[in-house]
């Protein structure tokens, strides 16, 4: 059955799984990948590792494809008079929360909305309310809320995916569920293509809090090369092409010390052979992605970063262009199918022509 990308993105997006609480998305991926990989493992932090064995002789080389599965979120910090105050787990933008809908994952899941003092009674109507001034209202009496909600309960965006013009969707957690959709597309395509290397598909835990899952997963599986998949800033109102990348303009390929230059070059060649749109994202240091962790795993892993541009990052209405997701899936499958048993020699540091002459 051909994969319905829009449905896949919707299913992945609407699941609630903030950092450290990735269970629901891990189980969804276990189902989605059940027929696409040969074996599952998990690391100590809960990253899901799907192994699709290659056709080469053992011991086979391994490529790690890593997309984080956690989302930004909040936890309950206080329950007072039936209202709920939160602190963020990481990366939540409280300026965009007034009047936003959330789910409070208490003894049962409650539908809430962020409220604050009306503008004429607020500390300032020229400032966005702070986390301390925003209260979740679940519309229930105080005693009922006290029974149902405890400090530490998770709070996530209550946001369904909507279709915009063109191939664009809006919804929550596109950072980074759209990359998991792309990774799934890649595995789907590899069902019909031969590949020599083992493919290690990783849905990593706890990226938003410091790329922890990628570190532990890489340690466990010891890849020969790795490609991290993430999202990057799309151009939008207030974000020009000096800071962002066009939606629909293709994924970005990271360039900088986090990435292996020869691997980068090989990727560019595959992309141009596919006549695929790509953008270059220059990252002079920490890429802020799983690639930063993976690169220094064990004795070092040649790494790459492919990012899908999204708008309104870390809000409940992130926007993506489906074509960019498809491109990442296609690219990865082609790249993997093209990996020869001695590919590592092709990108080895000591194969510079001027040295070997």
């Amino acid at each position, binding site marked *: 059955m051909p994969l319905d990308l829009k449905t896949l993105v919707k299913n992945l997006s609407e699941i609630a799984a903030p950092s450290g609480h990735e269970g629901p998305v891990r189980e969804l991926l276990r189902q989605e990948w059940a027929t696409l990989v040969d074996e599952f493992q998990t690391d100590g932090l809960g990253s899901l590792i799907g192994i699709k064995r290659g056709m080469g002789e053992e011991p086979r080389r391994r490529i790690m494809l890593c997309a984080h599965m956690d989302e930004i979120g909040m936890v309950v910090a206080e329950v007072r008079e039936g209202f709920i105050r939160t602190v963020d787990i990481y990366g939540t933008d409280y300026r965009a929360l007034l009047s936003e809908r959330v789910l409070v994952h208490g003894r049962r899941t409650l539908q809430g909305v962020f409220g604050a003092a009306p*503008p004429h009674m607020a500390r300032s109507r020229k400032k966005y309310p702070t986390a301390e001034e925003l209260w979740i*209202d679940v*519309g229930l009496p105080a005693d009922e809320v006290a029974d149902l909600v405890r400090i530490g309960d998770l709070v996530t965006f209550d946001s369904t995916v909507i279709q915009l*013009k063109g191939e664009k969707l809006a919804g929550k957690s596109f950072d980074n569920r759209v990359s998991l959709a792309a990774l799934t597309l890649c595995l789907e395509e590899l069902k019909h293509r031969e590949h020599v290397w083992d493919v290690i598909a990783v849905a990593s835990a706890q990226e938003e809090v410091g790329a922890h899952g990628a570190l532990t997963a890489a340690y466990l599986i010891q890849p020969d090369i790795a490609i991290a998949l993430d999202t990057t*800033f799309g151009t939008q*109102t207030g974000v020009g092409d000096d800071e962002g990348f066009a939606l629909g303009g293709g994924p970005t390929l990271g360039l900088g010390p986090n990435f292996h230059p020869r691997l980068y070059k090989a990727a560019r060649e595959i992309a141009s052979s596919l006549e695929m749109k790509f953008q270059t994202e220059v990252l002079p240091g920490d890429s802020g992605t799983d690639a930063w962790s993976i690169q220094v795993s064990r004795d070092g892993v040649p790494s790459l970063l492919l990012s899908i541009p999204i708008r*309104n990052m870390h809000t409940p*209405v992130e926007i993506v262009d489906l074509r960019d997701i498809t491109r990442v899936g296609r690219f990865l499958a082609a790249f993997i199918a093209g990996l020869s048993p001695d590919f590592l020699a092709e990108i080895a540091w000591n194969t510079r022509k001027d040295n070997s002459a």
Partner: protein
Amino acid sequence: MIALLRELSQAIGVSGDEDEVRDLILSHIQDYVEDIHIDPMGNVLGVRRGTGAVDLRVMAAAHMDEVGLMVTGFDSDGTIRFKAVGGLDARILPGMRVLVGRDKTPGVVSWVPIHLNRSDDAVDIDRLRIDIGASSRDSAQNAADLGDRIAFDSSFVELGPTVRGKAFDDRAGCASLIALVQGERFPFDLYVAFTVQEEVGLRGAQVAAQRLQPDIAFVLETTACHDLPQNPDEPDQTTITRMGGGPAITVMDRSMISDPRLVRHMVQVGIPCQFRSPQHAGGTDAGAIHRSNAGVPSVVVANPCRYLHGPHSIMSISDFEYQSQLLRAAWMALTPSVLER
């Protein structure tokens, strides 16, 4: 009544473009109200005939319009410029979902990621844009026209003792008024007005009152409710109304002073109610009606509603149901002697 409220809440009618709401209301009142007239402003006027026992011209008004936004232009990248229609707290806009124009084209208010801008200064509405996914000005103009209204994209949900949704201000008042005209006849002829353009300056009500020439008027409204935990540095610690305290009777707001005889009458009928804290904020159709013609004694009965003028207001079901019960009880007991000085 909740089904009626749901239907009215989900209809879209930003000020000056109330067609959808008007049609819905007409379908609910046509079997109960006579002399239905849609005036040049778009108000729906009519009379619910009474038993004739009491000789008073009584007007009851609820407004059909809701706050929202309006398309004011298009940028070359396909985004839409907009302004507010009615009083709207611009701080709710970042990341908001909206529906643009008659086709209800989905869009979102763009918000620069926190990684790139951390300022907590509220962004002026003129600098925000709506993204419908169009990638050029032409493509955006195919989907929307200048002047198109933009509504909050919301859903109506029941949360146990409360309901959540958009435009309870004032579809809750409309629902109560519909329920009142559908019930037992009153001792007097009740002149009903479902008004337009309340949110942009009580425009419809003024014209409605001039036509209906009432002796007294009742305005069915919603009002702000601020019963959240308060921080010590918030300047105003007033609780405007309390949710669950019953419908709120306005003694005074920015637009009018309620007639004290009518306030007294409302309180005496024995249905749970509360007073809205008197303050120079907020205004209702009563502001226009009470100063129409030779002056009309008026009173406002309003449902407390948290997060008014936003996409997800919360209102108590019991407050809402008491609104029509309070008015029914008050009207059944209404005689000209209430107005004796």
